[in-house]
């Protein structure tokens, strides 16, 4: 019997291939969007991890030559023999590939070949012709060598790991080392560095926290997008499954009337749906791969700019990713079909099995209540919620609540339209549109969510850009930033600056605990640079003068929020020194608190701290010449001088990339939502025949009916868009003011971008029009016999 039932179930798809295609495509698109975003996220993260692991940057202190030259190998051996646990690295480019030579015996665990696949062994790595470990695409770009190549996916992109001996050979740098990784655990009784190798300097692990925070922020964008696309996808899946059931109610009734047990029927339908879900999931994951592969180069470029490290532009297939994509498809199908199967199980055998759109309106009241509850939950969480997970729950409640509120609000709006209508056709148009709302509601909810996501995320990204560029302008007010290695060099820098009439702003800093929070205390010289450029979030009048007199301090937003401070609060800076807060400044990307004091007060309080970092104010056109002077006269290494213009240009290009990605994802979500609408309209087109036929029979031509259908889609999309805008802004607010604060401790100011919203609205209308175009065209070409058939035979 199972076979017979299956063949009956399949016969429906055979007779309506379009339904099958729409079901599969809906599922596949939802999955594709979800898994595409996930893939991008996963790939970027994997790339960082590999980069960090391969290069040891950001984790370990390093020793380099003061003059930036190579370190002789004998110096390395001398350091080891003096008890310094350091590991040599030599680097260089071979063709376009970065060759990193390491010594696996002394390297800290976790550096180097991330996994030695393909039967590699230490002997083959360090002796003989050696081995080159890299990703497949890197190996392909590598010139021919006699070494064995080993595909190692977890090595950083565009980087090849080789033994240091092989690296020296390949790069023609025998006996030379570029840098030494300092292992975290060093023996006691180690002689000081300058007595062993005077030309070398040890640098602390680079303070990558700021950059890392920014990339985290970027990932939060993507994760939010992933979440949103997941919700959109779920709605689409739900819609597709729900419609598939609606269409088959008569068949189910017939099968049951023929004696098929309900339990078995439901079981078989579940199996059928799981199979379809799996097939659609596979297609979706493959599509997601295409999406990710198309977007990844831009994401990679963004992250390369932000992080300074390579993220591969090439996608690796990760099993976790396949599995999560399939789980979304099958799990989404299960969630979506549970309700439908439940209602099928309770369907009375003799009830009308007709899939009539208005039947769906029944649950309207319950859903409205649910929506209200969810929105109230979101509101409550916004006010009283604590922690990141509360923030995400709030996002979810806001989105789902907003989506569920759509049908009742649409009905309300359409009633309003109907009340204003004069002509019979117009009245029929509004009434009929209202009647279609339940049938289209899932597709419209998907559209609503897609638009909401777009408004929310683009507002967030744009606000982020505006804020951050402004922040860079204030923070990087000096034209050049220089780090000295010691007090003597600091004096030489000051002397060179003085000789050239350049203003020196020393950056005095000490780590401390302020108000129970880890914080940095800065001493700032009273200078127009600060007054002109720094914008305070909140401040007492004339805060800079109060600061200059040493009668107050500025704190950053993080400290202000975490320690629950306020303007005027007395802050204990050090024993015997307590000053009131006179201003609060934005400090985006910084994980710890900051306090700014006047430099005179600072020096009095911390006499042992000497400034080793300086901001230098000079004519931007003279920066290059001054750099050269510092290099020649004060011995400052190039790497110790940072040109503000370069940082700014880099940051701006990063944001441009971010936009490319955001825009692409916007268009994709809209396309998916548009597809959901097309699907629903196609299904409704068949179901609505009994309602259209009488209107046609009363004299409204098919062409007119089709035009009205098209107009109806546009009206519904426009109304949905009208709701999406406030919901999207609420979403953006939640991301900026709740999630960001919980995740990073700073709040991004929210800006509005009306032109962007207008463009998004136009895109949504376009998507809706495109979705309605085909069903309308089919209606305009529908043979009159089919319309007449409604009267002849009630199916």
């Amino acid at each position: 019997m199972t076979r017979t039932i299956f063949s009956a179930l399949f016969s429906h798809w055979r007779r309506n291939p379009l339904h099958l295609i729409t079901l599969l495509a809906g599922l596949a698109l939802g999955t594709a969007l979800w898994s595409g975003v996930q893939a991008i996220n996963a790939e970027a993260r994997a790339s960082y991890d590999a980069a960090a692991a391969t290069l040891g940057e950001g984790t370990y202190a390093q020793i380099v030559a003061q003059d930036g030259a190579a370190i002789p190998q004998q110096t390395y051996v001398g350091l080891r023999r003096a008890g310094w646990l350091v590991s040599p690295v030599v680097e260089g480019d071979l063709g376009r590939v970065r060759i990193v030579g390491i010594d696996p015996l002394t390297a800290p665990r976790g550096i180097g070949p991330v996994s030695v696949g393909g039967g590699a062994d230490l002997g083959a790595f360090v002796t003989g012709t050696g081995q080159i470990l890299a990703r497949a695409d890197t190996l392909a770009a590598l010139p021919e060598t006699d070494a064995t190549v080993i595909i190692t996916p977890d090595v950083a992109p565009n980087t090849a790991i080789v033994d240091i001996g092989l690296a020296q050979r390949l790069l023609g740098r025998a006996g030379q080392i570029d840098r030494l990784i300092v292992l975290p655990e060093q023996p006691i009784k180690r002689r000081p560095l300058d007595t062993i190798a005077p030309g070398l300097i040890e640098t602390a692990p680079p303070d990558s926290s700021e950059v890392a925070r920014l990339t985290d922020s970027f990932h939060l964008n993507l994760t939010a997008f992933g979440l949103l696309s997941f919700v959109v996808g779920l709605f689409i899946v739900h819609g597709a499954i729900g419609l598939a059931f609606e269409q088959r109610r008569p068949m189910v009734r017939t099968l049951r009337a023929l004696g098929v047990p309900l339990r078995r029927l439901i079981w078989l339908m579940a199996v059928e749906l799981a199979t379809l879900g799996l097939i659609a999931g596979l297609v979706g994951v493959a599509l997601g791969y295409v999406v990710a592969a198309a977007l990844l180069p831009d994401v990679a470029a963004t992250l390369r700019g932000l992080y300074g490290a390579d993220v591969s532009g090439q996608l690796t297939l990760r099993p976790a990713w396949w599995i999560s994509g399939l789980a979304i498809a099958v799990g989404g199908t299960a969630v979506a079909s549970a309700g439908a199967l439940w209602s099928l199980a309770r369907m009375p055998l003799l009830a009308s099995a007709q899939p009539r759109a208005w039947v769906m309106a029944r649950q309207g009241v319950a859903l409205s209540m649910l929506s209200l509850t969810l929105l109230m939950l979101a509101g409550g969480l916004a006010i009283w919620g604590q922690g990141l997970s509360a923030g995400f729950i709030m996002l979810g409640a806001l989105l789902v609540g907003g989506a569920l509120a759509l049908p009742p609000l649409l009905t309300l709006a359409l009633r309003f339209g109907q009340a204003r209508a004069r002509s019979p056709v117009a009245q029929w148009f509004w009434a009929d549109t209202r009647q279609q709302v339940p049938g289209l509601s899932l597709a419209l909810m998907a559209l609503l969510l897609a638009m909401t996501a777009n408004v929310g995320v683009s507002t967030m990204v744009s606000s982020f850009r505006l804020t951050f560029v402004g922040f860079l302008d204030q923070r990087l007010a000096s034209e050049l930033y220089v780090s000295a290695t010691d007090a003597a060099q600091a004096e030489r820098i000051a002397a060179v600056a003085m000789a050239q009439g350049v203003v020196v702003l020393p950056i005095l800093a000490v780590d401390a605990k302020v108000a129970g929070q880890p914080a940095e205390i800065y001493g700032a010289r009273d200078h127009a640079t600060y007054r002109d450029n720094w914008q305070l979030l909140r401040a007492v009048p004339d805060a800079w003068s109060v600061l200059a007199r040493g009668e107050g301090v500025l704190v950053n937003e993080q400290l202000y929020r975490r320690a629950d401070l306020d303007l005027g609060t007395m802050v204990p800076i050090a024993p015997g020194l307590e000053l009131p807060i006179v201003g609060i400044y934005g400090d985006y990307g910084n994980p710890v608190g900051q306090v700014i004091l006047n430099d005179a007060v600072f020096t009095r309080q911390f006499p042992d701290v000497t400034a080793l970092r300086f901001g230098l104010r000079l004519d931007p056109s003279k920066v290059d010449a001054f750099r050269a002077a510092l290099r020649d006269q004060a011995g400052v290494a190039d790497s110790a001088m940072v040109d503000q213009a370069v940082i700014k240009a880099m940051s701006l290009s990063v944001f441009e990339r971010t936009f490319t990605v955001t825009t692409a994802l916007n268009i994709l979500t809209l396309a998916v939502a548009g597809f959901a609408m097309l699907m629903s309209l196609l299904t409704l087109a068949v179901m609505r025949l009994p309602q259209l036929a009488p209107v046609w029979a009363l004299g409204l031509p098919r062409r007119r009916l089709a035009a009205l259908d098209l107009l109806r889609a546009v009206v519904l999309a426009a109304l949905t868009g009208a709701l999406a805008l406030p919901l999207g802004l609420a979403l953006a607010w939640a991301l900026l003011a709740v999630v960001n604060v919980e995740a990073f401790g700073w709040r991004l100011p929210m800006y509005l971008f009306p032109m962007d919203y207008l463009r998004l609205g136009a895109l949504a209308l376009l998507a809706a029009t495109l979705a309605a175009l085909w069903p309308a065209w089919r209606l305009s070409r529908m043979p009159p016999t089919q319309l007449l058939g409604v009267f002849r035979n009630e199916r």
Partner: protein
Amino acid sequence: MNVKLIAILLWLPFQAMAQGFAGLGTDAEGFAQPRPDTRLQFPADHGPHPDYRIEWWYLTANLTGPDGTPYGLQWTLFRSALAPRDGQGWDTPQLWMGHAAVTTPDAHYVTERLARGGIGQAGVTAAPFAAWIDDWRMEGPDLDTLRLTASGPDFAYDVGLTAMGPLVLHGQNGYSVKSSAGQASHYYSQPFYQLSGTLTLPEGDIAVTGTAWLDREWSSQPLAQDQTGWDWFSLSFNSGDKLMGFVLRGSSDYTSATWITAEGTTTALPDGAFTAKPLSHHSVAGRMVPVEWRVRLPEKDVDVEIKALNPDAWMATSVPYWEGPVTISGSHDGVGYLEMTGYDD
């Protein structure tokens, strides 16, 4: 990265010395093999033998502080060859590993160093004698007068050694058989060092004196395939006599021992003459290790109990094993060192 995998790949050659002997016992292609007719030449044989797969300079010492507290000290330099050749520069197949430890009655400090030969970071020269890895040194004009240093993150030591007796050759003129199938090594010792110097421990510097025992051994295929580990004893009795004995655990145990008189004359004892039976086990690093033994050598009327000074003397190194000072009681009294390998969890 897969630390474990790397660690295994990295220490494959070294595993022959401590544990996981399977697979390495038989594959010694291209490496020189110990031969019974080889006559050891000094000082040349104090230096490395790169044609052999593995080799070590292994010093253990029983020490006493000013207040009578007993201590143990270990300094070991292992050489492990990936291929039977020497060479200068990075691509030498000669790898070096150093282990240093200090054992007190209630603490065990241990650290490890790794290096490649060929660049000067680690190595051994025979005359003047010098063995080193990084800042760790065992060096002197000759093997009779040495200065020994090592340092780790929480301890260091700097001691002087003076040999008060002759070198001792084990087995047949230094040819020491390790299994009934004929696996063997070249093996000699200097068990007569007097030691004095300073231990630096977290609680401060401690002046110590005592005795030390240096083992020199090299081979390419030291164990039979079925042998999984060993228990090695170096015992110094208060009578002045000394006993080196080991049990190689396998499908059937193989024992060997050397009786050393106070004057340095030796008696090589065949398989079965020396026996060692565990009396009690101790849980350390997640495995059960025997830390009390009954050791018998009927031929010399030896029937003693061996007890670890600190049962937690676990060497948590790339290749982990147990190594620590012991006290002797029974027919003879004294102190010594115990090494136990192959106790996998």
